[in-house]
């Protein structure tokens, strides 16, 4: 009997912490994007601050994620088309090891940095507990949009164009 009570109590305690990640993910909107500096698979160090003044698409993905594989070619296309206008995509792989990512990039190279994510980076962005997740960051470093799961890419493209049209210190 006491074992049953203990089990129920422990489970209830665990419940108290639930939902914190979901809250922090939505709380990031309209706040400064968390800074990070990671080594990309190319060997270069990628620092978010280095892209200040650009509209950044920060995408969390994985090689085993079907919807991610649909999105990446579109992001590559946008990088080629909009790069000169101040657009910069950065992809963070949530694969557990770099080997499948390197193999995927060998088959289909991407025209933007790809780095390996970790739990710390994911948690700083509110937790990445499903893929894909994409953040759009305005020229002033503020997060304006968060897309999760299978997304309407035309809507995302329109949001990017709107951010590119904004002056650097535009207020929402």
């Amino acid at each position, binding site marked *: 009997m006491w074992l049953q009570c203990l089990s129920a109590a422990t489970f209830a305690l665990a419940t108290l912490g639930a939902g914190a*990640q979901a809250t922090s993910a939505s709380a990031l909107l309209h706040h400064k994007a968390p800074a990070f500096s990671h080594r990309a698979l190319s060997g270069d160090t990628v620092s978010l601050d280095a892209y200040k003044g650009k509209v950044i698409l920060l995408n969390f993905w994985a090689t085993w994620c079907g919807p991610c594989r649909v999105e990446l070619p579109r992001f590559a296309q946008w990088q080629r088309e909009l790069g000169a206008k101040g657009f910069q995509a950065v992809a963070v792989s949530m694969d557990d090891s770099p080997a499948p990512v390197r193999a995927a990039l060998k088959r289909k190279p991407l025209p933007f940095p790809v780095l390996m994510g970790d739990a710390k980076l994911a948690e700083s962005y509110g937790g990445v507990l*499903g893929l894909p997740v994409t953040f759009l960051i305005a020229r002033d470093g503020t997060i304006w949009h968060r897309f999760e799961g299978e997304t309407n890419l035309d809507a995302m493209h329109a949001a990017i164009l709107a951010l590119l049209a904004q002056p650097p210190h535009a207020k929402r």
Partner: protein
Amino acid sequence: MRTHSKLKIVFAVLPVLLLGLSIAAQSSAQAFSASADPGSALSIPLASQVTPEQLQHMLSGSVTAQPLVLQVGSHLMFEQSHIPYATYAGPGSTPDGLEALTLAVAPIPKSKLIVLYCGCCPWNHCPNIAPAYRRMLQLGFTNVKVLYIANNFGEDWVAKGYPTQTAK
């Protein structure tokens, strides 16, 4: 009297009709499952699926009735957040992951209630859950359930307030 007889016939036939309808519905669900790609979560029979609400209910019960919960997806996601007392058992989409799952369940009795979950991506795109489920059946486990996660673990478990633990 005649009306009474008719009613008797209706009451006699009705259960048979309902049973027939139920069997037809089940066969249809099984047929749908059988026709889906065996690597797809859509191939997992409905009877083997549990909802987040049902799993939470199971986990809140007595210790002896609690299932063994295995996460068969991304370790990075498990590290960030997982169902309390769940064990990481390797991604079902890779041979190494299936080998890790086989090792993880080796000491477990074949009749033990086991719930597998992933939640890496939308159910119809999950590459891990169906191969892991099939491996469990191949190993002879007779009481395997799969947590139905429609979109992802964050949206369908964490954001709904169900309990979580981190790997720290």
